[in-house]
């Protein structure tokens, strides 16, 4: 049964990982959008026609905490074009035509990064273009910034007194049990824990966190990680990834601190608990020590032909990745991200960006369209909601534009995990209603203030 009597959330079948990560060779043409995660787009620092090497900075992060953007192949910047994102926005994107040489810029290596000041380390993370993965995509530097100095929100009434970051939790398995990129990465780490060790220590140094937690799936076998934790007195937590969304940030935060964080406005990291994917931690280590920027991304390709984990350069057309995974036949639907939370996109002609943790493919006969019948009031959604909301009620409030009622019913606490829609017998698009409600409320509030 996918609904448990004893815990909230839903039980999903877990993918067995082969522990292998396949490298996809650099493609001849990459497209790199200037927008990376939320926030304003990065500011261009090169010109069209410039020759670039791998790792060369193309754009500076907007404001002082946005991540930089780097060239992922060597070649020539040929154009700036419009790129249509699946969420409906259109963003400027740089096009690089490759020269096939794959030459890297000479990194400015620093073998003793830990003696640098926290500000310097944070700047290196920002320059390295590190993105916080898992959850709302944001520059890691920005996330740390927000975590250490929480800001009041448009709707918030609570205090905005800075809470020091007390816990850092490193997640070694994907939130969505269909995906296995992080598990595969953990398997490849093996005993080579130097990067992991460094990354954790850098983050602890920047934030001053008191306790580090390693969050693993209870099926994962990782002697190297266990050993590292033991040596440094880190806490190892094993959760059941099959019980979705137990590995999502709020649930992990609860598991590490024993206290439920406020999920309103997705600001789990402003509760003094930083939950990060292991991938992010490794990228941090590379960014501060080797000064190697983020130019590639780990990605799960999950489809009718099985699941595989790949590493590909940013900007690689998704079609290339899909064919490298051997899944190019009979595609009816493609989702950027896991099946529970990903966004569907209408074309494979889209580049790999830092925001895409996975590609989920459905064969033509697997595609089901939303029914969106009226709510029958069965209450299953209220039974599974990990946030203990009544999504059926909330979705009706949003459907009939009762925004105030929706806000009273804690609409903003919703983490959009999709459990409610997963179990809904009427096929209602619950998450859609919630998102619409949040957007509506925020925009009216903004126009009022």
């Amino acid at each position, binding site marked *: 049964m996918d609904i448990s009597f004893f815990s909230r959330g839903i039980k999903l079948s877990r993918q067995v990982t082969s522990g292998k990560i396949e490298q996809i060779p650099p493609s001849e043409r990459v497209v790199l959008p200037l927008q990376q995660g939320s926030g304003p787009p990065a500011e261009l620092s090169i010109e069209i026609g410039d020759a670039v090497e791998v790792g060369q900075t193309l754009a500076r992060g907007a404001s002082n905490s946005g991540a930089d953007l780097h060239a992922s192949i060597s070649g020539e910047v040929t154009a700036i074009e419009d790129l249509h994102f699946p969420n409906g926005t259109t963003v400027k994107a740089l096009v690089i035509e490759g020269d096939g040489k794959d030459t890297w810029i000479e990194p400015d290596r620093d073998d003793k990064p830990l003696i640098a000041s926290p500000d310097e380390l944070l700047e290196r993370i920002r320059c390295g273009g590190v993105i916080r993965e898992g959850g709302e995509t944001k520059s890691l530097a920005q996330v740390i910034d927000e975590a250490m100095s929480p800001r009041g929100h448009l709707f918030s009434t609570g205090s905005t007194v800075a809470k020091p970051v007390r816990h850092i939790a490193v997640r070694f398995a994907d939130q969505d049990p269909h995906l296995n990129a992080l598990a595969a990465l953990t398997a490849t780490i093996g005993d080579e824990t130097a990067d992991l060790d460094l990354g954790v220590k850098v983050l602890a140094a920047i934030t001053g966190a008191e306790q580090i937690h390693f969050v693993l799936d209870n099926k994962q076998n990782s002697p190297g990680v266990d050993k590292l934790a033991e040596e440094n007195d880190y806490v190892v937590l094993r959760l059941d990834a099959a019980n979705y969304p137990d590995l999502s940030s709020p649930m992990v935060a609860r598991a590490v601190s024993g206290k439920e964080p406020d999920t309103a406005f997705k600001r789990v990291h402003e509760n003094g608990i930083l939950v990060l994917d292991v991938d992010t931690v490794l990228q941090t280590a590379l960014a501060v020590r080797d000064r190697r920027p983020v130019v590639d991304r780990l990605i799960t390709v999950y489809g009718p032909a099985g699941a595989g984990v790949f590493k590909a350069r940013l900007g690689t057309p998704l079609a290339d990745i899909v064919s490298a995974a051997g899944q190019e036949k009979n595609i009816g639907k493609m989702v950027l991200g896991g099946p529970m939370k990903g966004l569907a996109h209408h074309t494979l002609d889209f580049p790999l960006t830092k925001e895409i943790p996975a590609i989920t493919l459905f064969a033509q006969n697997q595609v089901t369209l939303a029914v969106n019948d*009226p709510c029958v009031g069965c209450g299953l959604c209220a039974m599974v909601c990990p946030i203990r909301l*009544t999504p059926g009620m909330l979705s009706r409030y949003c459907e009939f534009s009762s925004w105030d009622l929706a806000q009273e019913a804690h609409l903003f606490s919703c983490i959009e995990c*999709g459990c409610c829609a997963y*179990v809904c017998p009427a096929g209602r698009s619950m998450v859609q209603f919630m998102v619409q409600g949040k957007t509506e409320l925020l925009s009216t509030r903004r126009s009022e203030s």
Partner: protein
Amino acid sequence: MTNQRLVVSISPHIKNGRTVRRMIVTTIAALMPATLWGFYQFGLDAVALVAVGITAACGTEALISRLAGKTSSLGDGHAVLTGLVLALLVPAGAPFWLVIVGAAMAILVGKMPFGPLGGAPIYPALVGLLIVATSWPNEIKSYVQPTTAPIELKAQGAADAEFPRDAVLIDPSDEAEYKTADLFLGKQVGPIGVISPLLLLLGGLFLILRRVSRWQAPFGFLIGMGLAAGIGHALDPSGCASASFHLFTGSAMFGAFFLCTDWSSTPVTPWGMFLFGLIGGGLAVLLRIAGLPYGAVPWAIVIMSLATPIFDRITPTPFGKVASHA
């Protein structure tokens, strides 16, 4: 391949395949053991009544969908369930027209005016039942002697004063003549589908295990009935039968597992469901003691249904919120 247009839809992109239709079919299946027991006890009359009830409900729904120019919603099986539940709550000796009018009213007054499935504030079958029960108080009491009931049914009509309550023989003075085990195993007089607490309990547990219904409302109802009857019996043994007698007679089990777990007319929050059941159970016992003409349990549940929006306000404190804030 790059120009291929793919399907775009919203997350989550997988569903557990649960549909309204399947959940209703499961409910009907869970009712089958008790229904078959009723058929065995009351014979072909019962079969005919159930068939008539289902036909009338489906016919009315089809007719109204047609008149209203809507696509027929017969496919989800809810009309079948409504007709079935209505027929099961009626004694086997009831005239056909009673069931036909009841089923038609259930759909006409109880379901269709409230739009699509999920809008009805009161369980439609109960609307139909209570309309016919208040309109024809004598016909609704046409109880029939079941095949295996251990003592003979008193002459019908003459014993009308003895039949005033939800179950036949709720009169405490009759209690001694029955063994509790007999009652539990379904050897008692009553409407077609409600006489076997054992089979209804099994059906109800099946629904709960299949996650079609929640445990809170049914068990709250049973606890409420048990507590109210227990206290009543302790205070006045001649005025109130024992808890086991109340729980195992009449539509107590049926109400708990199949009426308290309706979707639209009952709350969805955990404490809301439990309190709904608890108060409803207590109310049912009170109505039985007060000597309601017919159907203490259905009436209690209908009254509680009207308070459902209030119970729905008893929401759990959301994740990460301070309890006093909610």
